[in-house]
């Protein structure tokens, strides 16, 4: 099966300014992919190129198997919310959706269900201009879903939302991801993305720094444990003991941090526990150090920058 999105050497220049610089990436079908990068990294421009709104200066790519230069072939199966929701302010949310459904040749019978799905069932008849920012974003999602798309491209869908709105949006994206649909979502809120995305594309300066499963990115620094003995007096003895067994040991926030390379956390935990037990040291904490997407992102930015 082809990838949902595949681009190779995709480049966009505006005059002498290169916004997307030979970007190469592949999104397998069915993933929920987070598109991460600082402001000006080229996320929105990349999405716009995938949707046929912006023409690449160089490079090629496919969306759902079709060349990106032929958007008419694939846009019927793609839903998108890019650069914020854009609707006619003086007509209702429902009428805005009707209009877009007609323009796209979509079945208008889906509109009532979509309004319910995004939590706007009671406000569909109200003028769009009366909507809150969160409601506008949700109407944008409903518009993106009009054609029951295989691929959903969402550019900062939680932008400007309050914490509750962000949480609702995260839940909505999680629900939309089911049924084999591919979702590409950009956001600045990495903790939100970490919770819903199983794939990550990290870009900086228009180039991909990482592309792959979220799990692999976060496991990159795996094999770290925090250890806390019951009695603080045992701390120094435990550190010495672990070092004699060739483990890297340090201290963070009063806890002992043990490292043993990538992907060996279960074995490492068992080994540390056994060593402490044999030495008569009781542990009250033995837990893996979880690297967050934000920490990983910032460390990669440091390396790149």
């Amino acid at each position, binding site marked *: 099966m082809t990838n949902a999105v595949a681009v190779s050497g995709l480049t966009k220049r505006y005059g002498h300014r290169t916004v997307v610089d030979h970007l190469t990436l592949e999104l397998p079908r069915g993933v929920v992919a987070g598109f991460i990068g600082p402001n000006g990294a080229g996320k929105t421009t990349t999405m*716009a190129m995938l*949707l*046929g*709104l*912006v*023409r690449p200066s160089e490079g090629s790519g496919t969306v759902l198997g079709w060349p990106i230069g032929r*958007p*008419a072939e694939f*846009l019927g199966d*793609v839903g*998108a919310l*890019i*650069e*914020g929701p*854009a*609707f*006619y*302010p003086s*007509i209702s949310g429902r*009428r*805005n959706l*009707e*209009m*877009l459904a*007609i*323009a*796209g*040749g*979509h079945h208008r019978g889906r509109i009532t269900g979509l309004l319910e799905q995004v939590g706007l069932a009671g406000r569909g008849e109200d003028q769009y201009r009366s909507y809150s920012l969160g409601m506008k974003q949700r109407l944008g999602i409903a*518009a993106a879903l*009009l054609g029951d798309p295989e691929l959903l491209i969402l550019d900062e869908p939680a932008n400007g939302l309050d914490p509750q709105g962000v949480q609702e949006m995260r839940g909505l994206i999680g629900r939309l991801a089911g049924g084999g649909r591919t979702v590409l979502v950009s956001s600045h809120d990495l903790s939100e993305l970490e919770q819903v995305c199983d794939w990550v594309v990290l870009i900086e300066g228009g180039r991909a720094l990482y592309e792959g499963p979220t799990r692999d990115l976060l496991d990159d620094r795996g094999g770290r444990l925090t250890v806390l003995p019951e009695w603080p007096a045992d701390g120094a003895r435990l550190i010495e003991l672990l070092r004699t067994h060739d483990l890297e040991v340090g201290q963070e926030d009063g806890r002992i941090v043990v490292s043993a390379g990538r992907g060996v956390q279960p074995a490492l935990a068992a080994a540390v526990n056994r060593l402490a037990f044999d030495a008569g040291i009781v542990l009250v904490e033995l837990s893996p150090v979880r690297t967050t997407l934000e920490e990983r992102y910032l460390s990669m930015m440091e390396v790149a920058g």
Partner: protein
Amino acid sequence: MIRIVHAQLVRLARGRTIAVLVSTTLLFAVLTSLTVFGTASSEPAVGGAAGRGSTTISALEGPSGGTEAFAIGASFTGFLVFVTFIALIATEFSGGTWRALLLRDPHRRRVLVGTVAAVLVLAAGTVALAELLTLVASWIVAPANGVATAEWFTISGVAAAAGNYLTVLAGIIGWAVFGTTLAVIFRSAPLALGVGFAWAGPFENIVVDSWDTGYRLFPGQVLASLIRGGTVELTMGRAVFTAIVYVTGAALVALTLVSRRDVTA
């Protein structure tokens, strides 16, 4: 393209919009009829201008008299159509709804032509209503001004009415294309309106005051002559030909720009 026209009509043809259009058209019909019939002279003006802009009792009693008030009134609406199209189309760009439509139908030229066509469909209906209402209003006020109406309801009268309708509609299409082109070029309603106002308002009118050739060359003057059915400075045939050249050129510019430019707003 039919889908885009249909979609835009769903947006435009709302009860409130229709009510405003009908009310405005009714007001136009009444005011125009009262003014034209009230100011019609019994003799042609000395050195009287050909075409529309003034009229006589004898002209009003002719076959085209029933829709003469409509034709005269409509000749002043070109600028209104121009700025309306600038505002409508430029707002599509600046408000992001152009982008939203392209995500449904990526054929940009089709979307632009469909959007303009939808507004023109509404305009065509409004013009027809305006002509009908003006005819009725004229028929009501004619006796009080001593104007006989017998010839209005003949075959010649119907043909004259159809001719007036088509002439006005042609002028409106021309203004619509010019307005759309400016909107496409600037993609900003304030900027496009500013340039449009400056050009079609002060610039053209000041220049033609001292340079007669401007009547035959300036797009706004050409369309004004067309809607008036020809003028002393520019005959109807020449106005039609020049208007076709200008409108075709403007349409080509607009279609080329929308198909080549990136959509970044």
